[in-house]
C-alpha cells in the first residue's frame, strides 16, 4: 500500500521484497516530521495509506503518530509461502485459501533463498497483522500455541514443502466472512522475533485464509417469516417470504438479497438459499413472481418487491428488521424466467424505464441468474456492467440449452454481461434441482444425475462466494470462484461431481491479449500483436452454433457454442490438433511489461461431438508458455493444477453423437509459477504467450474453442 511499486512487484513476479518501515516515507530510518509532511501531501489519496483501505485519512495519521520516533531498523523479506503441492512442475503453487480441516502447506524455494539451505528454522502462524502492525510486532507469537520447527534443504521448492501442524484447532471466521486470515513467518534465525532474513507471507493482505466450508450453514442463527404481504406490488403477487439473522438488531444494516422464482415455481421453494444466506448475515426475501405473462411482468414484480421490502422494513415481521436493510447493497437472484426477469429489471433501471422510490440502479450490486431463459434477447436481457453470475445444470430438461431454440440458451445472457462475471456449470444437474419441489426434468445419460442435495450444496458455495466477493472482495470467496473445482471445493462435494467455472474480471483489472472482438483476422490479436500458428490453424467466429443440431459438421466450426442470438456479437477462436502444434500470441512492445498482473488466464471448451473430442474422451491438457524478450521460456501444463479442460457432458439428442453445449472453463495460472519454473524469466519484458498442444505438451488430440486470453490482477 505505502510502497506501491514494491507491492506491485510482489504481486507480479513473486520475487522477494524488503519491507523496511512503511511509515518511513522519506527513508531516513526514523518515523518523524518528514514522513508526516509526505502523509499530509498525500491526504485523500492512496499515496500514504497505512491501513490498506486505499485512502490516506485520519486513521493513517493515528497509526503514524502511534509509532512516532520509531527507528526503522527491522527488515525482513516478504514472499508468498502458503500454497499447495503440485504433482508436476512447477511442483508448488502459492494459494491463500484452505478449507478448515484440509492439509495446509507452505513451500520455500531454496534456489532463491540459498542462505536457508541446511538451516533449521521456525514456522510461525500469526494473526493477520496489518503492514503497520508488522513494524511494531517484532515478537512472534504462534496462534497454534507453539512454533513449528523445520529443516530446509537444497533442491528448491520441490524439496521444501511442509504441512502445517496443529491446524485442526484453528478457528474459522466468527462473522459472515467465509475465511479468517493468518500470516506466516519463517523465523530464519530462530530468535522468536522478526529480524533480518526472516520470511513473511502476509505483509499487506493475509498470508493465508482458513475457510469454513461455504456449503455449511453460516455463523448466525436465522429466523424465517413464512409469508408477508408486500404493498405496491401487482395484485395476485404480493406474497413473499423473509429470512434474516435472528440477532439482526445487534448488527449493522445488512445487504438485501431478493429471490425471483421461475414459471410454475413458488416463492416458498428456495428455503435452502434463503436460510443459507441469512446465516451469513443477509436479509433475504423470496417473492411471488408474475412469470406467466412473460419476462416484462416478471421484472416488474422483482422491481416492486425490492421497493416494498425496503419501504416495509419497519413493520414487516413486527419490526424485527427495522432499519436493518442496507438498501445500498442489493443482490438479485432469479431462476429460469425469473433469471431473465432480474436482468430485464436491471435493464429497465439502466434505461430509466422504471424509477424506484427508495433505491437506485447503482444499489444493485450483483445479478445471479440460475438457468435463465432468453426470450427478450439482445439489448433487453442484459446485465450490462453489473457483476453477473450464471448457474446452469447440464441435464436441464426445460431451459435445455438446445441448439434449435435461442430461448433456452442461458449462456446468451452470460455473454452479454460486460462487468465482473462468473459462471458455474454443473454436470448432471437439472432445472428443478435448484429449487425444492419442481418436477424431475433430468435429461442426460443414465447414472449421471447428481440430484437436488448435491446441486444445492454447490449452488450455496458459488452463490455465497459471488455475493461475498462482489460486496466485500472476500479473498476466500474469490478463490472459490476462479480456482478449478478439482483444486478447491466443499469437502462435502462428491469426488465424482464435475463443476466447471468461469471467472472474468473487469477491464480495469485485466489486460486483454485476445478476445477476438477486434482485429478479427486470425493472424492478429485484439491487442495488436501477431498470432502465429504452427501445425494448426486458428479460426475465429461468433459464439453461435450455426444450425439446429449438435452433430459435428465442418461447416459449423462453432458447434456447441449456444451463447448468442443473431444480434449478439460475442466471438471466440477455435482450433484443432492431432500432432504437436502451437499458437503464439506476440505481445506488442508497449504491453511487454506484465509486472502489474498476477495471472495469465483464458477460457476454453472442448468442441462437442468433434471427432478429436470423441477420441480424447476425457479432460484436455495443454501447456502454456511465456517467453521473454531474451528468449527465456517457462512452460506449465494446465493439468498440474488438478484438472484440464472438461470433457463435454455426454448428453445426446439434437443430432448424432454425444456431447452437449460447449462448457467454457477458465484456466488461470499464476505468473509467479512461471518464474518459479524459470527463475530468470523476465516478466517486465514478455515477448509472447503460447499455447502448446499435442502429445509432447498434454493431450495428443483435441479441438478447442478459446476466448479471453488475458493478464489479470488478483
Amino acid at each position, binding site marked *: 500500500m505505502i510502497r506501491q511499486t514494491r507491492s506491485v512487484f510482489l504481486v507480479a513476479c513473486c520475487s522477494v521484497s524488503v519491507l523496511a518501515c512503511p511509515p518511513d516515507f522519506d527513508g531516513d530510518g526514523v518515523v518523524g516530521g518528514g514522513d508526516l509532511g509526505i502523509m499530509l501531501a498525500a491526504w485523500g489519496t492512496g499515496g500514504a495509506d497505512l491501513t490498506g483501505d486505499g485512502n490516506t485519512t485520519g486513521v493513517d495519521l493515528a497509526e503514524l503518530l502511534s509509532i512516532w520516533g520509531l527507528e526503522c531498523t527491522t527488515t525482513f523479506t516478504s514472499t508468498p509461502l502458503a500454497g499447495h503441492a503440485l504433482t508436476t512442475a512447477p511442483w508448488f503453487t502459492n494459494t491463500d485459501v484452505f478449507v478448515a480441516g484440509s492439509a495446509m502447506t507452505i513451500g520455500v524455494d531454496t534456489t532463491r533463498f540459498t542462505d536457508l539451505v541446511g538451516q533449521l528454522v521456525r514456522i510461525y502462524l500469526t494473526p493477520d497483522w496489518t503492514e503497520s502492525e508488522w513494524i511494531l510486532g517484532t515478537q512472534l507469537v504462534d496462534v497454534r500455541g507453539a512454533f513449528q520447527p523445520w529443516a530446509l534443504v537444497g533442491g528448491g521448492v520441490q524439496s521444501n514443502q511442509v504441512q502445517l501442524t496443529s491446524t485442526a484447532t484453528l478457528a474459522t471466521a466468527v462473522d459472515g466472512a467465509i475465511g479468517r486470515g493468518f500470516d506466516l513467518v519463517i523465523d530464519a534465525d530462530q530468535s522468536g522475533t522478526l529480524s533480518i532474513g526472516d520470511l513473511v507471507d502476509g505483509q499487506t493482505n493475509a498470508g493465508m485464509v482458513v475457510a469454513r466450508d461455504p456449503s455449511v450453514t453460516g455463523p448466525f442463527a436465522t429466523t424465517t417469516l413464512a409469508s408477508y404481504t408486500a404493498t405496491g406490488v401487482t395484485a395476485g403477487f404480493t406474497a413473499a417470504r423473509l429470512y434474516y439473522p435472528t440477532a439482526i438488531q445487534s448488527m449493522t444494516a445488512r445487504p438485501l438479497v431478493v429471490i425471483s422464482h421461475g*414459471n410454475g415455481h413458488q416463492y416458498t421453494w428456495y428455503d435452502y438459499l434463503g436460510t443459507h444466506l441469512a446465516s451469513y448475515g443477509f436479509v433475504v426475501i423470496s417473492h411471488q413472481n408474475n412469470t*406467466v405473462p412473460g419476462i*416484462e411482468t416478471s421484472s416488474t414484480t422483482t422491481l416492486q418487491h425490492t421497493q416494498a421490502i425496503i419501504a416495509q422494513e419497519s413493520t414487516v415481521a413486527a419490526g424485527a428488521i427495522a432499519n436493518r436493510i442496507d438498501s445500498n447493497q442489493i443482490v438479485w437472484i432469479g431462476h429460469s424466467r425469473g433469471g431473465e426477469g432480474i436482468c430485464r429489471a436491471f435493464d429497465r433501471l439502466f434505461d430509466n424505464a422504471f424509477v424506484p422510490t427508495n433505491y437506485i440502479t447503482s444499489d444493485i450490486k450483483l445479478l445471479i441468474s440460475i438457468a435463465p431463459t432468453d426470450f427478450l434477447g439482445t439489448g433487453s436481457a442484459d446485465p450490462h456492467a453489473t457483476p453477473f453470475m450464471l448457474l446452469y445444470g447440464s441435464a436441464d430438461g426445460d431451459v435445455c440449452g438446445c441448439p434449435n*431454440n435461442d430461448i433456452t440458451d442461458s449462456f446468451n445472457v452470460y455473454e452479454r454481461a460486460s462487468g465482473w462475471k462468473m459462471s458455474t456449470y454443473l454436470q448432471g444437474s437439472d432445472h428443478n434441482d435448484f429449487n425444492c419441489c419442481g*418436477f424431475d426434468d433430468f435429461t442426460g445419460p443414465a447414472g449421471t444425475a447428481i440430484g437436488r442435495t448435491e446441486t444445492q450444496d454447490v449452488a450455496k458455495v458459488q452463490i455465497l462466494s459471488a455475493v461475498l466477493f462482489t460486496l466485500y472482495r472476500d479473498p476466500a470467496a474469490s478463490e472459490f470462484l476462479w480456482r478449478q473445482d478439482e483444486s478447491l471445493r466443499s469437502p462435502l462435494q462428491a469426488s465424482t461431481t464435475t463443476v466447471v467455472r468461469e471467472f472474468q474480471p473487469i477491464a480495469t483489472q485485466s489486460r486483454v491479449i485476445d478476445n477476438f472482438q477486434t482485429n478479427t483476422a486470425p493472424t492478429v490479436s485484439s491487442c495488436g500483436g501477431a498470432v502465429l500458428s504452427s501445425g494448426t490453424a486458428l479460426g475465429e467466429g461468433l459464439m453461435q452454433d450455426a444450425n439446429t443440431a449438435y452433430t459435428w459438421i465442418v461447416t459449423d466450426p462453432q458447434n456447441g457454442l449456444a451463447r448468442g442470438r443473431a444480434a449478439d456479437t460475442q466471438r471466440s477462436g477455435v482450433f484443432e490438433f492431432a500432432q504437436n502444434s502451437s499458437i503464439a500470441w506476440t505481445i506488442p512492445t508497449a504491453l511487454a511489461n506484465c509486472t502489474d498482473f498476477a495471472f495469465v488466464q483464458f477460457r476454453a471448451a472442448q468442441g462437442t461431438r468433434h471427432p478429436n473430442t470423441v477420441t480424447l474422451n476425457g479432460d484436455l491438457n495443454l501447456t502454456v508458455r511465456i517467453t521473454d524478450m531474451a528468449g527465456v521460456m517457462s512452460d506449465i501444463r494446465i493439468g498440474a493444477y488438478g484438472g484440464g479442460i472438461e470433457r463435454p457432458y455426454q448428453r445426446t439428442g439434437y443430432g448424432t453423437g454425444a456431447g452437449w453445449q460447449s462448457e467454457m472453463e477458465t484456466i488461470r495460472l499464476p505468473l509467479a509459477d512461471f518464474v518459479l519454473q524459470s527463475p530468470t524469466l523476465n516478466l517486465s519484458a514478455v515477448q509472447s504467450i503460447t499455447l502448446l498442444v499435442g502429445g509432447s505438451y498434454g493431450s495428443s488430440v483435441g479441438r478447442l474453442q478459446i476466448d479471453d486470453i488475458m493478464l489479470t490482477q488478483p
Partner: protein
Amino acid sequence: MKQQTIPSRFRAVRCVALIVGALALASPSAMAQGQQGIPPIPATPARVGEIVWARPFTVEVPWASDWRADHPTTSCGWIVVLRAESGMCFPRQVASPVLMANDMPVEVIEPVQGGTLVVAIVRADPNAQSLPNVALSSITLWWSAPALPEQITAAAAQESWNAASQGGMKPVDERAATKALDAGAKGVGPLQAKDRQELSDAALAARLAFEPVVR
C-alpha cells in the same frame, strides 16, 4: 433466429402427433435421455376441454391487463375453471400455448405442475350494470400458438383469432356454460370484488375447491 415453432393443426392431426410422440418416447434410446417430466406441447389452435365452473365478476377498481401488449383495461368478466390436457397448461419455462377468449389472452392463475385444471380470468366489456355485456356461451375459449401473452399485440391476437374461427373453432357449448355458471354463481350471483387482488384470491379459492392439494 431459431425460435421453436409448432405447426398449426387440428384435433385429428394432433392425435396422430401424440401417438407418434408416445411411440417415440417408448423406444429405448429416447427413454434413456428423453426430456422427463415435461409433456410435449400439443398442436394448436385447439379447443379447450370441459368448462366446469364459472362465475361472473366485476371489480370496483379496473386494472390494465398485462396479458396483451396493449394492456386493455379490465373491469368485468368471468372466473372460469376448465379441464385441459396437461401439455396445454403445463408451466414450462419456454413459451406455452396461450389460452384465449376470442382475441384476448386469458389470465391464467398460477398454473400447477401436472395439473389438468386451469383457473383463469376471462375479460369482457362491461354492460350498464358493469357486468359482461355478452353471454359466456358466446365466447370461444381456445388455445393459440405458444407465446408470451405480454408480447401478443391486439392486431396479432385478432389475426390468429380470425384464422382459428375460420378453421372451425366454436364458442362454449351453451348447456356447458349454463351448467358451469350454475356451479359457480347459482345462489351467490356475480362476484363484486374490490380490486384485482380480491379477484385473484377468489380465483385461487376456486382452484382449491377443485384441487385441494397445491403441488
